[in-house]
């Protein structure tokens, strides 16, 4: 039993970083195993492929972290929102809009859609139901408007989506930048601090003059920006979109976030961890593809890994918090 009221604690910081350290250690262990059994694993091409694969899920998981931190659980409209961004971006560019303008409009539009959900959630209603309903509505409306067809950029091809900058794929670069920006936002700014505190205890936050409404809306704004980026990136790479884009994104992003160790109840976690979670899953996935795992094998291993990691992280946190 870990019940003592007086166990000496080490300085909190170490324990804050420990779960992350463990994920990294596990990922490293995974890489070592992978290298041993897969000769082509450590090639530049494969590493780049892993990073690329982790990018979109990573951006979304990072974008959702403030929402989870603030005690608003997760969105169940992830795939639909990203799809909305992708379809809009491709449609606008295909309609002859200049790309920067299209990007601004898409980001702004997604923020509007996100803030609408955020405003409802901020009144105290359950985010899971709200986003579940919002996702169904977004999907229905977009499918209706596009007539279920493929939206294309047509004559206005966008090349940069799969380009590289200095050898680094553009989506990896954006993933990196976005992670750093959101991490700094969460750890170094007042808004970030308030987000975590609201998630840790909403009532105390209110007494301390922290507005739940403001924090929730901010979290939905960051979420929307991240999803807009994900949608635009994929739009710019594929030059086409349908209302069925991003079929698995919702589950993948939530899994990445949880594997990263952000507490689902809020008040604990960081965007950096979510990014780590996305990378970790990408490494496992790549390892299995390279070793010719069957569809079932891949899913079973991935699911097993998710279960194992979240249980491990949970136990670690429990050891730290329960006294």
């Amino acid at each position: 039993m870990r019940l003592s009221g007086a166990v000496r604690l080490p300085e909190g910081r170490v324990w804050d970083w420990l779960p992350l350290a463990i994920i990294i250690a596990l990922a490293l262990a995974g890489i070592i195993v992978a290298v041993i059994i897969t000769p082509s694993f450590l090639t530049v091409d494969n590493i780049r492929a892993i990073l690329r694969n982790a990018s979109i899920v990573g951006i979304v998981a990072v974008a959702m972290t403030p929402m989870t931190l603030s005690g608003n659980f997760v969105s169940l409209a992830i795939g639909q929102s990203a799809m909305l961004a992708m379809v809009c971006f491709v449609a606008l560019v295909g309609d002859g809009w200049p790309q920067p303008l299209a990007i601004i409009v898409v980001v702004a539009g997604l923020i509007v859609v996100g803030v609408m959900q955020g405003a409802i959630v901020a009144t105290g209603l359950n985010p899971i139901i709200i986003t579940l309903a919002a996702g169904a509505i977004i999907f229905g409306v977009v499918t209706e408007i596009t007539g279920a067809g493929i939206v294309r950029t047509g004559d206005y091809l966008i090349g940069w989506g799969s380009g590289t900058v200095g050898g680094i794929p553009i989506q990896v670069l954006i993933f990196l930048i976005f992670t750093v920006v959101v991490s700094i936002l969460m750890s170094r700014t007042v808004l970030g601090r308030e987000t975590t505190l609201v998630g840790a205890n909403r009532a105390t936050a209110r007494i301390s003059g922290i507005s739940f409404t403001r924090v929730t809306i901010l979290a939905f704004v960051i979420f929307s920006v991240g999803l807009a980026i994900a949608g635009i990136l994929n739009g710019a790479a594929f030059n086409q979109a349908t209302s069925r884009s991003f079929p698995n994104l919702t589950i993948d992003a939530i899994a990445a976030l949880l594997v990263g160790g952000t507490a689902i109840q809020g008040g604990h976690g960081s965007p950096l961890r979510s990014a780590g979670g996305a990378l970790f899953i990408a490494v496992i996935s790549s390892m299995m593809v390279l070793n010719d795992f069957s569809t079932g094998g891949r899913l079973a291993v991935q699911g097993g890994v998710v279960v194992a990691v979240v249980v491990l992280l949970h136990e670690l946190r429990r050891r730290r918090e329960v006294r």
Partner: protein
Amino acid sequence: MPEEAASTGGLNGETAPPLRLGVRRLSKRYGNVQALDSIDFELRPGEVMALLGENGAGKSTLVKIVSGLVQADSGTIEIDGKPASLYPSARSQAAGVAVVHQEYSSVPTLSVAENLVLGQKGIPPIWLPRELNARARRLLAGVGLDYLDPRTPVERLSVAEMQLLEVARLLVRDARILIFDEPTAALADREIERVLAVIKRLSAEGRSVIYVTHRLPEVFRLAHRVTVFRNGQSLPPRSADELDVDAVIAMMLGRELGTMFPARGSLADEPLLRVDGLLAEGLEEPVSLRVHPGEIVGLTGQLGSGASAVVQSLAGMLPPLAGRVELKGVELSLRSRVATLKSGVAYCTADRKKDGIFAGRPIRENLSSPWVRAVSSAGWISGRRERIRSREIAAEFAIDVKRLGAAVGALSGGNQQKVAVGKWLGTAPGVILLEEPTRGVDIGARAEIYQRLRDLCSAGVGIVVASSDTSEILGLSDTIATFYRGRMIRILPHDEWTEDALVREVMHQEDEAPAEAGEAAS
């Protein structure tokens, strides 16, 4: 009552009955902390034994061992003269031990009847509502709740009713050793009466009671004997009649309590806070108050008396219906907590765990939560300035500065409360509002908190304390206002009050305006 009389109090005159509970040389260690160091403890049949001690003295560890939540490292336990093993809790329950927790263990969504059988042994696997309700009615009658419909969801009950329901539940188990862990902490005086009456009745029936509390007056009204724990060790039990408040406190602290309430300073002439005709939900009549720099104004009354409503309204948590409030000559907007906070109103709530601290977050973040904007520029937190300032506060409140990175939830209740109060220092508040500032806080930390509040006063801050603990109000305040059923009854300087007068006014037992009060109630 001499000791001999107490021992035979509820019994039939036998001279040496076996102890209901005998604990010898019990020890328990958590990590490198010796929570219990070879303590002895005894409980006679039909006896109410008060268990006193500061937080961390080992009371709750003993309660946990007796109730079977943890296992002792060494020592023996006997029940009715026979060696007993009380771990795990199922065995403890089978031996007739039952605990009334500080936090209620009723489920608000279930009915009273269901709560009564929840978790009980010997209840058939299939529940027939009719039978259940009939059984519940019998049990409720035993604790003076015969007027309750057993089908009522518990969430509609008052706090005292829940507490009594809790007791009723234990009676189902035919518990012979009842442990009350601060049962009255959240109750106002009148409700306490009901609970104490029930406890007296239980002991008269021959049940033994261990009564854990921080409230000394109750001890003398209820307990036959008193056991004091200090630093994991036990002092021999003493008959309650031999003791008085000062003696008990001396036993708990191991020193005389001369410094519990710090000396008062002198007051300025100009009021800092003017409250004129304030009316809010929970208040029947407008309230007017003055708080001077360096003054502590104590508001006291039972639950629902309006004392809390005044504080909450001033804090911006309860929108006012009428009235004008001025702070330092400027009108104070009470529309939102954000607005009052900006004007320099600090507010410490009654329920620390619920809305006083961020249990999972580090102490430093807790301390800086209300003033983090002040150590940031353009939204960027300066980690250095935050650290410096939180260290200052921690040092002032005797919080271990090396542990500022640890989660607040890991601290003892007293230290948590120090964080909950201390964080407001960083906001350079003009007025500090506190509700029940020392609920569930051990006496050592209590004295420290009182001292800090006085220190703040000498720095020119005005303080408003709402508390149902009349001795606290009397010892701490410069000016005291009494509240009853939504009305402020009287406001006078502290030296014009006596504890007796205060209690009587809060209980409202005087003859004045009973009709009025009756109206308000209806």
